């Protein structure tokens, strides 16, 4: 039984190591910002998740008590990682992209980040701002 658990823990650790490495490697390797965003947010989050699973099993099997702190960490990770990625993407679109360089935004006409609300009266040339 113990050995099986150890194998499980080792498996999660290895998986997390691989994902973590891939994520970090992707951050270096991928070409542009939007692609690079995928690496840490997806792969590395999974990697961290692996470590957390390993930790839970470790506490159950080796230390003989149930530890659920890791679940909380997972929860926070799942909450913060997408928001962070979202904001990085938004910042990128805002600073480095124009509506022309982006793929079309279907029926909305324009991506939300470019849809700047105009408070005061200006000679806006886009209908979308009205």
């Amino acid at each position, binding site marked *: 039984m113990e050995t099986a658990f150890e194998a499980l823990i080792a498996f999660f650790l290895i998986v997390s190591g691989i994902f973590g490495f891939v994520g970090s490697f992707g951050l270096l390797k991928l070409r542009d910002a939007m692609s690079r965003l995928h690496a840490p947010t997806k792969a590395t989050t999974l990697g961290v998740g692996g470590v957390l699973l390993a930790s839970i099993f470790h506490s159950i099997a080796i230390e003989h008590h149930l530890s659920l702190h890791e679940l909380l960490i997972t929860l926070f990770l799942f909450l913060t990682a997408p928001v962070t990625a979202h904001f990085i993407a938004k910042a990128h679109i*805002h600073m480095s992209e124009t509506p022309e360089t982006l793929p079309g935004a279907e029926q909305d006409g324009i991506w939300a980040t470019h849809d700047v609300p105009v408070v*005061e009266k200006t000679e806006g040339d886009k209908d979308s701002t009205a």
Partner: protein
Amino acid sequence: MSLFLIAALPFLGAVFPALLIRAGRNASSASAGATTFLALLGLLVNAPAVFRGEVVTARFDWLPGLGLNANFYLDGLGFLFAGLILGIGLLIILYARFYLSREDPMGQFYTYLLLFQGAMVGIVLSDNILLLLIFWELTSLSSFLLIGYWKHLPAGRQGARMALAVTGSGGLAMIAGMLILGNVVSSYDLTVILQNKELIQASPYYMPALILILLGAFTKSAQFPFHFWLPHAMAAPTPVSAYLHSATMVKAGLFLMARMWPVLAGTDAWFYIVATTGLITMVLGAVIALFKDDLKALLAFSTVSHLGLITMLLGFGTKIAAVVAVFHIINHATFKAALFMSAGIIDHETHTRDIKRLGGLRHLMPVTFVIATVAALSMAGIPPLNGFLSKEMMLEEAVHTTWLNSPYLVPGVVLIAALFSATYSFRFIAHVFLGPKRDDYPAKPHDPGVGMWLAPAILVTLVILIGLFSKAIVGPLVAVASGAVIGGGELPYYSLKIWHGFTPALYMSIVATVGAIVLLSVHGRFEQIWNAIPRPEAKVIFDAIIGGMTALSRKITEGLHNRSMARYSAIFVVFVVSLAGYAYYTGTDSVPTRIGIEPGIMPIIGWICLMGATICLVVFHHNRFVSLVLVGVVGLIISIGFNYLSAPDLALTQISVEVVTIILLLLALNFMPKETPWETTNERRFRDVIIAGISGLGVGGLIYALMMRDFAFPSISEFHLANSYKGGGGTNVVNVILVDFRGFDTFGEIIVLGIAALVIYALTEAVLGTRVRAHLLNRKPDMPQSGDAHPLMMVVVTRVMMPIALMVAAYIFFRGHNLPGGGFIAGLIAAIAFIMQYMASGFSWAAERQKVFYHGIIGSGVLIAAITGMGAWLNGKPFLTSAFGYIHWPPLEEFEWATAMGFDLGVFLAVVGAVMLALESLSRFAWQPGIASEHAMDINPARDDDEIDEKKEV
């Protein structure tokens, strides 16, 4: 009544007029009057004892370590002055009720007046010179408020400033003199000092102490050459002038000289400094007063002159002269206060104080005419009024005084002063009341209501009665007061009566009176000559001196820090480094007693990150966003470092402080340029690198050296570790130190924190009240704005996070006493939970849904902490002693309670309030019309978009 209560009553009562003004002006003045009356009653209860020659005392050791004791004592002199202060104060309160107009904030006036009254009573009753100095400064401050009471008048503000500058700096000199005196006698108690005449006069410090104390007394009593502030202080409302500048405050200097008379007087230095100053002041004031057209200026200079007279008498140093001085203090207070009030009445009714525009008022204002005339005749020294008596006695003393072997100098100068004094008194009567009735008064003059003339009428009655029956009315008072001045022993023979026979003094009086009538008849021609002579204008000189001093201090200040952060940090760092270098090279070095531990891989990684971030910070600091991120990195590594080095409390604090700081800085960056311009030369940068490098390496080396050695003294951490659980009931030593061992520090700190937040709020308010507001409202963003500022994902996530974050805060709070955590960290976490809402949906949206004022949260935090601390009193323990115990409620496990929890709750609330208030204040700068969205998020699929579009089109 205890002396404590007499001294404290005006201060306690000062609250009521300010509050009761809402119930009307009568209620306000009645409360002020009642307070004064009570204090006066308390004083009179002690009268029998004082007249028996006893000294009433009340002692309380306040700060024995400093020699500062709240000791009061009441002897004849104190009784006389306290009686004057409270008695005339009562009359002034009555008079002011009818003098002040509806537009004047009367509650404020009475509050200031009572504060002043309390400070004055404090001076005359103090038995401790340090206490006396405190009250002395308080009179300067409260009189500043009173003189500048009409804030809208530039003359009032300038006069108040001048009075404060002159009397305040004199007070500083006096502090030094008093401290010297206290050191010589090695006691700060007046009663002890007054016993040690020989010791003090034999001391080499006698001269400096004398000069410094006299500086204080002379500035306060407007003696030459400091006499100039008094006329400028006449910009005050007339009740203030009547109270401060005739009866009380300017007499504080005289009081002090009289008080110190037993130990300071009797030497040549005393005689030549004090008597000469008094003599000059007396004649100078009298001469100038004659040529003043402003009624109050005339009275002001005449006050200067009479103060000089009393100073001179005290300066003579003979016992009989001291008796005369005391007598004249009483007489001057009565007739001069009456005169000021009459001048106020004239000003009030005719709307002018210019003598040239007055005249013939005797028919129009008969009551005022009688009052003012009697008072002025007394001032001129006409029998049978009280002014005559003391003037006669003064002349008698002057005749017997030799100045530098010349027996004629003092009598001669005094005669001139008496002549001018009688002249301006006559002028006051003749040019205001006598003469033909005019038809060009600025207003229709008539006698005021009884409320206004009652107070001066009472005083004038006293003037007459004291003149006629002086021995019966003031005889005992003069006796006990003079007895106190001369410091025990037999009183010399004197008699308070009108007729002394044909003495030189009588001849001098006759000469002065007759001469005055002659002089007045040629006053017009005299005045032309006077106006033709160039004279130094005191205000110009004063302004030049103050201007010069301001320029000098500005030069020094700007030389040291010219608003360049680099400049003053360089000065500071170089100074500290050279100090440390000096200490290092002159001190001895010890060998290291500890061995270092081998660094593991984790510390090395942390170190590399820290160094990397720091170096990047140096390289990229021109980009402020990047440097902010790097600062964040440094902060995070430091908190990890704390955790690694077994300081979880510090780590938690550091990380939460870091988050809040970065958010606040980001907010501030919103209003600032995003780049720091390149403005230093290469040489400057090289210099700065050297300074920074040396100081950094120096500090590093110092810490290394410190850590390699055992402490030179045993550390107190042993005590804390041993007593944390036993004494404080908690196993988290850090928290127990904060809420228990050093609870008082923490209490102070949360107050400071709250004040800091309130200051930020106040600054914001002040800035937004100026033109900056318009600028901010029209501000265009300095960089392109993005759409979808409040994205759905962020909004939803922060809503989910809020209860969790608050729960974490609660958890951290409750476990704080025994495990890492506590009120401070919990407060920061709770603040972050709220800040997240602000960030997600925008400040305006969140602020509209935030119903509690942060001011109140700060206040309640401080109050809760204070109440918890005071709870210890119920237990008979000192403030903030914590108690703890255990509770067992069946379904739950046994748990501990500690009063420290309540204190920690106060810390928690203060932190939450302070952080949020700071944030709110900064956010208010960004507010612009139309910025507030009624929706929590910009794009919400659940919302009907058509509705929005319609709205937008409208």
